[in-house]
Structure formats: structure tokens, C-alpha cells
């Protein structure tokens, strides 16, 4: 059977792709999984792979052509199979042919619902229409996956069987890393049911967190903070006032004396211990974020999601524009690891080899133009994040120390804050913590 080759969504935000180069010629035999072409997405160059076995019979577009996601760009079929219909469909209207079937498919069930629809018998039995294009092979919750997770949920549930709870509640708790024994049940006889787990997740009932100084709740990925009425009003009024993201800016002036000393001391130990000032700043930001979940957050419209993990985005300039790769769990990583990872991500970004999972999922971002001798600047928030830190150049500045004028290495950074989620004082407290860490970098090893 013929397999259509679709322009696939190769990144989460991709709407259109440019076929950079075909890797197979018409007439080449291909197997499922073989790379067919290189496709430039909105973020990177990715491979488009075959979804069926056979011969690449037809390429409908040439190198360098762009097509929207979902459009047929080629066809794989047996060598002697008749593909005229597909060719006519794809070749004729180009995008039109495929597009036309999709909306119709969605409309049909609606039609059947509408009381005034003329007749049911003449309505096509749309849901089972065989012409539906195959779903793009995005990582959907495949049955195998869900079965697997169900298995693990079952084994995990064994330890909590004592707390009366429904299988669904156990599965969701397991999925979200919640300790079900800490949840209060509201079902019949105090049974823990789905809504209890959802309420617990929303209110941040912990996964048996150790009462240590760590702010991070180890197993829950985040905490959804429901919006209070006052928070909703603040959000609405401020958004009316300024753009979709009511941004304000907080600037701090930091003394880098000790950071410079520390960096030099490490460098003296050998080249392998070389870290940049930016690496040290990233480490400090990550550490501060772990202590200020209200800044390490996403604005989700109806709630604020405070992340327990710190996934730090670092803006990298490339020839094609800006991209923000992510250092995951940055607060848990050692300075050396952050340094190496930052370097590697920057390289991949410049070579356009970042994978989508390497530039999505950040919880807060840092942009540094210090190396371009920018004294200070403001950066644009990367939604749904609620803040971004713009780091300027480290320079010698005259300052008063103990009543005397001295030259000190200073650096300015400006945090852009989404006022819907972050109030001035909240942002300021985060920056206070950050200042303490940067001015006393030994705390980073505590």
C-alpha cells in the first residue's frame, strides 16, 4: 500500500518546513525509518524519515521548497503500484487537496449534532472515513507506553494499598510523583479519588519531602498555584495597561570582586578548571531560582505554575537569530557541569544542531550581552516564563568602599518581570538572593 510522505511537525511550534535537501532520489528503495530529506524547521534542521517500506516513487517538491505541516511532499509505494490518484491529489492543488479533507472531517460530527441539520441518513459517516491522513508520528501516548506506565503504576500502588484509593487516583499520583498517603480522601468512606489527587497537586501537597533547607520538592515536577481574586484582578488590569505581558524592570549593580578572584583561583589550578564569569552567574541564578519558585514559574492564564525543577534557558545568538537552549536541573548541577553544558549547547545552537527537546522546557532564562560590551539592557520575556535576566558587561567602576573611592569590577543586570505573576517586591527579593550569591560565590559550594 502506498504511504504518503507528509511534511511533519518536527518541532513543537513548527507550522511550516523548508525541505533543504532530498536525501533519496525518485526510484530509491526505502525502509521505514530511513531518512528521506533534511527539513528546516523554525528552530533547527531535522531529518524527515520514511513511514513505510517501498520505493520513493515521487517527490512533489524540490530542494529549498517550503510547505505547511501536514501537506504531502512525496509518496512511497511498491515499484509497480498505481499511484496516479495520490499524484493527482498532491500534484493538482498542492496543499489544497489534503487541507480540504481535514476540516470536513471535523465538521461532520458537528453536523450530526445540530438539531436543524437536514437529514442524518445523507450525512457521511465521517468518523470512520478511511481517507484520514495518518497522525504525525509525534510522541503521542501510544498504547504501549500507557500500558507500561500502567504497569509501573500498579507496582507502585502496592505500597499504598493501605490508603483506600481508586486505581485512577493511584495512577495519577504516580504520574505526578505525589505521595498518596499524604492526601486526604473525599470519596465514599474517605477513599482517595481522582479529585483529591488533583486538589493535592494544585495545592502542592508534597511528595513526602524531607524537612531540609532545600526548597525543592524532590518528586513533584511543579506546583500549580490557583489564582486568588486579587491576583486575577491585578493580572487583568496590568495586561490592559501594557501589551499582553505587562513587563516591568528591576536593575541591580553587583560587585564582581570575589567572582573574579574565584575564577582566577580556579584557572590557576589548571585549564581544566576554567570557567567563565557567565558560567558562575548561571550557577548563581539557578541556585537563587531554587529558593524563589515564584520567579521560576510559568504564567498559564488561569494559574501560575511554580516549577520545582530549575531548567535554565540561556539565550544564544546564531547567524539565523536567537535561540534559547536549556540547562536542565541547573540548580542540581555542579559549576563544572554547567560550564561544559553551556559551552556544548552554544556550539550546537550555532551549528543549528539543537534537538527540539534541547530548547524547550525552560523555566527561566538568562540573556548575556556582556561579551558585546553592552553595559546594560532589557530582555524580552520568553512566555510562559515570568522573568528573564539581561546581563551586561563586567567592567571597572569607581565605587565608594568603606568611605574611600576604589575601583571595583562591577556588573549590571536587569530582570524583566511579568507583573501578572511577579510583583516588584517578589522580583527584588529574588535579586537580593542573587546578589548575595554573586558577591559571595563561596555560598555556591555550600
Amino acid at each position: 500500500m502506498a504511504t504518503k510522505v507528509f511534511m511533519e511537525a518536527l518541532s513543537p511550534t513548527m507550522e511550516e518546513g523548508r525541505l533543504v535537501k532530498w536525501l533519496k532520489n525518485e526510484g530509491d528503495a526505502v525502509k521505514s525509518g530511513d531518512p528521506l530529506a533534511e527539513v528546516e524547521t523554525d528552530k533547527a534542521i531535522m531529518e524527515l524519515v520514511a513511514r513505510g517500506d517501498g520505493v520513493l516513487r515521487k517527490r512533489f517538491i524540490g530542494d529549498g521548497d517550503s510547505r505547511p505541516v501536514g501537506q504531502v511532499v512525496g509518496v512511497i509505494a511498491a515499484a509497480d503500484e498505481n499511484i496516479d490518484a495520490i499524484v493527482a491529489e498532491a500534484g493538482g492543488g498542492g496543499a489544497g487537496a489534503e487541507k480540504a479533507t481535514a476540516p470536513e472531517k471535523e465538521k461532520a460530527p458537528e453536523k450530526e449534532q445540530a438539531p436543524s441539520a437536514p437529514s442524518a441518513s445523507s450525512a457521511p459517516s465521517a468518523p470512520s472515513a478511511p481517507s484520514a491522513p495518518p497522525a504525525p508520528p509525534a510522541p503521542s501516548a501510544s498504547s504501549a507506553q500507557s500500558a507500561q506506565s500502567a504497569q509501573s503504576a500498579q507496582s507502585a500502588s502496592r505500597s499504598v494499598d493501605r490508603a483506600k484509593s481508586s486505581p485512577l487516583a493511584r495512577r495519577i499520583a504516580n504520574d505526578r510523583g505525589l505521595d498518596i498517603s499524604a492526601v486526604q480522601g473525599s470519596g465514599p468512606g474517605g477513599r482517595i479519588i481522582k479529585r483529591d489527587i488533583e486538589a493535592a497537586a494544585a495545592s502542592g501537597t508534597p511528595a513526602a519531602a524531607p524537612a531540609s533547607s532545600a526548597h525543592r520538592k524532590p518528586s513533584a515536577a511543579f506546583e500549580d498555584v490557583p489564582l486568588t481574586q486579587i491576583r486575577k484582578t491585578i493580572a487583568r488590569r496590568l495586561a490592559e495597561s501594557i501589551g499582553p505581558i505587562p513587563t516591568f524592570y528591576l536593575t541591580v549593580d553587583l560587585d564582581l570582586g570575589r567572582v573574579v578572584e574565584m575564577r582566577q583561583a580556579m584557572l590557576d589550578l589548571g585549564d581544566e578548571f576554567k570557567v567563565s564569569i557567565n558560567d558562575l552567574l548561571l550557577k548563581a541564578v539557578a541556585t537563587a531560582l531554587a529558593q524563589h519558585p515564584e520567579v521560576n514559574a510559568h504564567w498559564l492564564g488561569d494559574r501560575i505554575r511554580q516549577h520545582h525543577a530549575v531548567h535554565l534557558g540561556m539565550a544564544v545568538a546564531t547567524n539565523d537569530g536567537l535561540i534559547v537552549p536549556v540547562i536542565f536541573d541547573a540548580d542540581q548541577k555542579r559549576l563544572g557541569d554547567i560550564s561544559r553544558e553551556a559551552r556544548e549547547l552554544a556550539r550546537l545552537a550555532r551549528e543549528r544542531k539543537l534537538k527540539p527537546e534541547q530548547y524547550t522546557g525552560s523555566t527561566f532564562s538568562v540573556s548575556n550581552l556582556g561579551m558585546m560590551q553592552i553595559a546594560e539592557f532589557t530582555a524580552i520575556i520568553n512566555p510562559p516564563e515570568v522573568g528573564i535576566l539581561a546581563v551586561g558587561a563586567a567592567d571597572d567602576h569607581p565605587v565608594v568602599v568603606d568611605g574611600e573611592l576604589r575601583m571595583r569590577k562591577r556588573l549590571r543586570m536587569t530582570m524583566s518581570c511579568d507583573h501578572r505573576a511577579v510583583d516588584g517586591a517578589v522580583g527584588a527579593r529574588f535579586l537580593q538572593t542573587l546578589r548575595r550569591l554573586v558577591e559571595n560565590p563561596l555560598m555556591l559550594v555550600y
Partner: protein
Amino acid sequence: MATFDVIFLGGGPAGYVGAIRCAQLGLNTAVIEREGLGGTCVLWGCIPAKALLEAAAFAEKMKKAPEFGVTPGDVKLDFGVAMKRSRAVSTQNSKGVEFLFKKNKITWIKGTAKLAGKNAVAVKTAEGKEEKHEAKKAVVISTGSRVKGLPQIGLELNRKTVISSDEALILEQAPKSITIVGAGAVGCEFADVFAAFGSKVTLLEALPGILPVEDADSSKEVERAFKKRKIDILTGAKISNAKVGKDGVSMTVESGGEKRDVKSDIVLVAAGRAPNVEDIGLQELGVKLTDRGFIQIDKTLATSVANVYAIGDVAGPPMLAHKGEREGHVVAEVIAGKHPHAIDYTNVPGATYCHPEVASVGLTEQQCKEKKIEYKVGKFPFSANGRARTSGETEGFVKLIRGAKHGEILGAHIVGAHATELIHELVLARTNEYTVEEVELAIHAHPTLSEAIGEAAMDSLGRMIHA
């Protein structure tokens, strides 16, 4: 004047169950009921209709009997006999409730009631006496609902040529031709009955499919089966020009862009029921109604007036006996000062007893789409089920809709023989938040129709065995 703890207005499935539970909890309870105990369900609904549907099923099976090596002699169909049997079953059930009342020492006051203050009820007894009774703890309104005609399109009930289900249940013989307006559960069930007894049946539905509250797949399956049995189905139907004569009714029906004249001996109006909220003193006491005319209640089934509760059809849809019964249980426990778990109305199963039967619980696939829930469907046809083949009842399917991520049962839809019995495995599963994994883990006996449920669960997980 007598004093009780609780007085129920109406002895249908909601009221009588509530009364029995109140009595169990030690409350001195009275039920005021003008007709017989059991209400619409026992007297004019579920029970007599099901008795007729069994007769219809018998008639249909007779046609297939020769295939099974059983060739009956001259098969005669007599609706009058079926009707009399159905009345006998109905009476038997009503007597059964009377017995339960005696056993539980519940007072049945025969008459019509009206609220007379927060703790008092005025009764006009069957003998015409005016009485007043006190309810110390609570008054529960369980007056139910009644059939209604469609005067807006010229089909007012005249109980002879334009009838409701009430009259249909006591016809002496099956009409030569009957037009049924409304293809919900009631309409489909009577279409089944009369078709089996030889009437020419035309089934009209204003919405685009029959059984419109069911999943579209279920509707289509029944429609297909009905058409095979020569039931004329017109959906998306608009009725105009209704002329009610002495010996029949004619009307113009527009459906599928075509107009045609439909004539029949009898028209059965099966389009909805009206709650019995009139003349029971609601307004005088300030009991609030909803926009749709039902009594407004909260989670504890309390009305807007203290100590006055409402349950059953009069308290809002779904107008189903089993929903009313559950409310009866709960209201009794609320009145007794217990704190029962609130009713989860999303777990009330729907059941239609036509052939093939239709049963469901939870959301339809269309509703999942509207709510933008990510779901997966598992479906297993009875044509691939061993037991269904043995009985030659291979119509229908089990369809499970599960959450894509956690496998929770969003909806379950069964069409086929005994569907209304089979659904309860899935009602139990939903009520206890079992996922399709637990359903699939349960070992289903072989050969049974229930195996189809296990297979549908497996199919939703992508590992169906037998199809």
C-alpha cells in the same frame, strides 16, 4: 391530624425507596400517593413496558426458531394478551411495594397532597376527606412527571388517536399503523413492540439521529436494526399540517429535504415528560424552580425552603427511575442526620430496552470531542463473540472510550442483546474509578457476552485478541 417525622409526596421509585430507607433509619414515615405504589415506573413505565418488550422479543425469536431446529406451529400474535400480562406484572410489583410498606411500618395515605407550611401537608383523601398532617423533620417532594402532548404542532393528547405511553400500555390490540413522535428511549421501545406485533410503524425524530442522547455509533446501530425490521425512520423530521380525525391522524413530515404525508391510525407522542410541580403549593411556600421548570435542589437534595427536599423526576433530569431511587436513599440519610456521599450524576447509566438493547454510562465520543478530552476508543463487535453467535444475537458492539493518558473510563456504550445487564460492570468500574486496565485484568468467563467488554478494554490498549 397525624404527626410523622417525614412525609413523602408521591410513592414512585424515588419516594417509596426514600420512605423505606427512612423507616430503616428509625423515622416515622408516611407516603401520600393518589394512585398505586410504585409510581410511573411500576404502573405506567418501566415495568409494563418491559413486559411488552419481552412479548415482542418472543415474537421476533419465533421467526428465527426454525433455524434452531424448533419450528413452531401456527404463531398467533395477540397484543391484548400481552397487554393483560403486562398489567398483571405491573400490579404484582405494586403489591410488592405495598408489602414492603407494611413490613417497614410506613403509612400510605391515599390521596393528593399539597404543602401547607414548612412542616405540614394538606391531603385530600381518595374518599374526599380533607386532612392535615405534620412532618416534624422533613417533607420530601417526589411527585414525579407526566406525559405531555405536542399542542404546538397540533398533536394534543386526545387519548384515542393521539396517545401517550400511558394509553399505549393498555391498547386492546396493536394498531394497523402507528406514528411515533420522538425517538428517545420511550419512542424506540414502543416502535420495537408495535413492529413485533405487526403494526406498520413510522418513527419520527426531530434531531438528526434516533436515541439522540446516546453515542452516535449506538444510534446508527439501532437505526440499522430497525430498518431491517421495516420500521420507517425519519430523522431531522419537521412535522406540519397535523390533522387529527376520528379514525386516524395525518401530517406532513419534512425530512432529508423531502416532504411526505404520513397517515396512521394512531399517533403516539413520546417526546418528553413534564415535571409535576403544579398544585402542590410550591409557589405559596416559596420553593424555587429551575429555568427548565424542575424543583431547584442542592447537593443534599434540599430545596430553597428549609426542611423541604425534592427527589426523582420533579427534581430534574435525567428522568430515570434508578436516579430517583438513589436520590431516595440519599435524602433519607440526609434527613436522618447522616452525611451521605453526594450523588455523582455522571455515573447514572442509561438503558433502552428495545432490540437490540442500548446501554451507556459516561460521555459519548462526541462529548469527549466537544470537551477536548484526549481519548482512545476500544470497540468489539458481538459478531466476533462466541456466546452471541450461539444465540444468533450478533448485532451490536461494546465501545469503551478511555482517557489517553491515564486510561480512565470516560464513557461506555453497549448495543446488543442484554446490553442493559452488561453495562453494570462498567458502571461499577466508573463509580470506583477503575481504569480499562482493571477491567481488562478481571477474568471474564467464557463463553459470555461480557467477554466483549474485556476485549473492548484490550482494544483501547491496542491489544485486542479476538477481532
